[in-house]
């Protein structure tokens, strides 16, 4: 008996060791790729394989970032873009969920709205940018509206579908207790679709960044999108690439935060 249990636990140790090893290999490769990319970029730029004026170099980008961070100017741009993106993201998601709930509350209304939703979903939302600016002015309100607009229709459609996919027997049980439609929504439909809502959050993070950056391209005097356009106009491509690097970093952080939130919410609900 004793030797057998020992082998069992040994096998388990072996399994855990292999798991850790696999993880280490993957992280090593990920780092290697990053270093190779940055290194190659630097070398290519120094040896004029690529035009350093156009493609800059990692050392240049780092320098721009450090000097702009030091005088606080970059921080301001980051703050503004982050604020606009988070606001657009939250507004787009919330309004989408509210729209979906309204559609669910009346099947006739949802049928009436169907073709309009299809058109609005197919429409490239950024094309509405100029109209937003005319309507809402050239301030950050337009940019937030852009960040929200780009995700609101797809959120509505995805969540409305999720509402309709909830097993109708949950409603049947509640109706046998005499639940009103609102009670059915509150007790069954809404909580059952929470995971679907959280997965739309992940999609919306990316969409809001697109909306906000395009919005900043069009009107802004501040923000990372503005810096990209400005850098392009004055031919400072180090500035353009620094802004891009910052956008990549913050978008990734936001995505990770939402992912953490997802894990937390789903665990507490089950």
């Amino acid at each position, binding site marked *: 008996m004793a030797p057998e249990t020992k082998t069992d636990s040994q096998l388990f140790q072996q399994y855990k060791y292999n798991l850790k090893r696999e993880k280490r290999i993957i992280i090593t490769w990920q780092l290697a790729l990053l270093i190779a990319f940055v290194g190659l970029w630097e070398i290519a730029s120094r040896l004029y394989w690529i035009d350093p004026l156009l493609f800059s170099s990692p050392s240049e980008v780092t320098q721009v970032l450090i000097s702009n961070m030091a005088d606080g100017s970059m921080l301001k741009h980051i703050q503004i873009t982050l604020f606009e993106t988070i606001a657009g993201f939250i507004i787009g998601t919330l309004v989408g969920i509210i729209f979906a709930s309204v559609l669910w509350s009346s099947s006739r209304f949802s049928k009436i709205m169907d073709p309009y939703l299809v058109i609005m979903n197919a429409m490239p939302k950024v094309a509405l940018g100029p109209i937003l600016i005319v309507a809402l002015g050239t301030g950050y309100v337009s940019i937030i509206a852009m960040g929200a607009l780009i995700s609101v229709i797809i959120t509505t459609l995805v969540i409305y579908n999720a509402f309709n996919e909830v*097993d109708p*027997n*949950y409603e*049947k*049980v*509640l*109706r*046998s*207790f*005499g*639940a009103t439609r609102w*009670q059915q929504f509150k*007790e*069954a439909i809404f*909580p*059952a679709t*929470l995971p679907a809502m959280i997965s739309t959050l992940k999609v919306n993070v990316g969409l809001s960044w697109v909306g906000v950056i395009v919005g900043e391209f069009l009107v802004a005097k501040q923000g990372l999108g503005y810096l990209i356009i400005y850098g392009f106009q004055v031919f400072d491509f180090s500035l353009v690439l620094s802004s891009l690097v910052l956008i990549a970093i913050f978008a990734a952080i936001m995505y990770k935060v939402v992912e953490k939130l997802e894990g937390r919410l789903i665990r507490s*609900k*089950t």
Partner: protein
Amino acid sequence: MSFLTIDHVTHHYFLANSYKKALKDISLSIKQGEFVALLGPSGCGKSTLLSIIAGIVKHTSGEVLLENKPIKPTDKTIGYMLQQDYLFPWKTIMENVMIGPKIHKSNDPAILTKAETLLNQVGLTGISEAYPESLSGGMRQRVALVRTLLNNPKILLLDEPFSALDYQTKLKLEDLVSTTLKAFNKTAILVTHDIGEAIAMADRIFVMEANPGMISKVFEVPIELRQEAPFSVRKHPKYQVLFDKVWEELEDKEGKTEE
């Protein structure tokens, strides 16, 4: 005399390009405290009939009366149990059980004690704070039974509540449901396609045929069988006799539809 009366009920399902006559001219009446079974092949309209009684589906014609009054779904006179437990996975067992009082906005403090007592009675102790996923199928169906009984419904509708369980659990649960309902003197309608289950649990058996759904024959379960718990019924000599008669009736009807 009659507690529940179903009088010439007909139901059609209308689809875009066709319609289906799910029930044709169903009439039956059930006494207070009686346990009846609806037995028939799948698609003969058993679930439809239960939904009509519950007031969830509106029938095309005919009348359904409980104590001579039409049933409204908001009356909380109906208890419904389905094939699956349909416990809400995001609610604890106690929250699941208390969903009925919550919907009726009842703030009777005694109801919580009653819920605990009922859970104990069906053999579920110390799981109030657990979530449904940690329970076995049989335990979950017992929670669903408590959820239904807590509202003190006048009539229980059981739509194949044991068919998703393994055989042993099913037999045990049949006994539990049968004795609990007898103890509370509840009127109940059990839908099943299992002849043995119908005989073991019911006082009367309505055999149904399909296309359109109609009642083809009614069997009275002998008094000796009715007094026994379902598990012992299956071992009674009269059980096999009735089983064979019901079997024959079902075979007969199946033969007809195949022609």
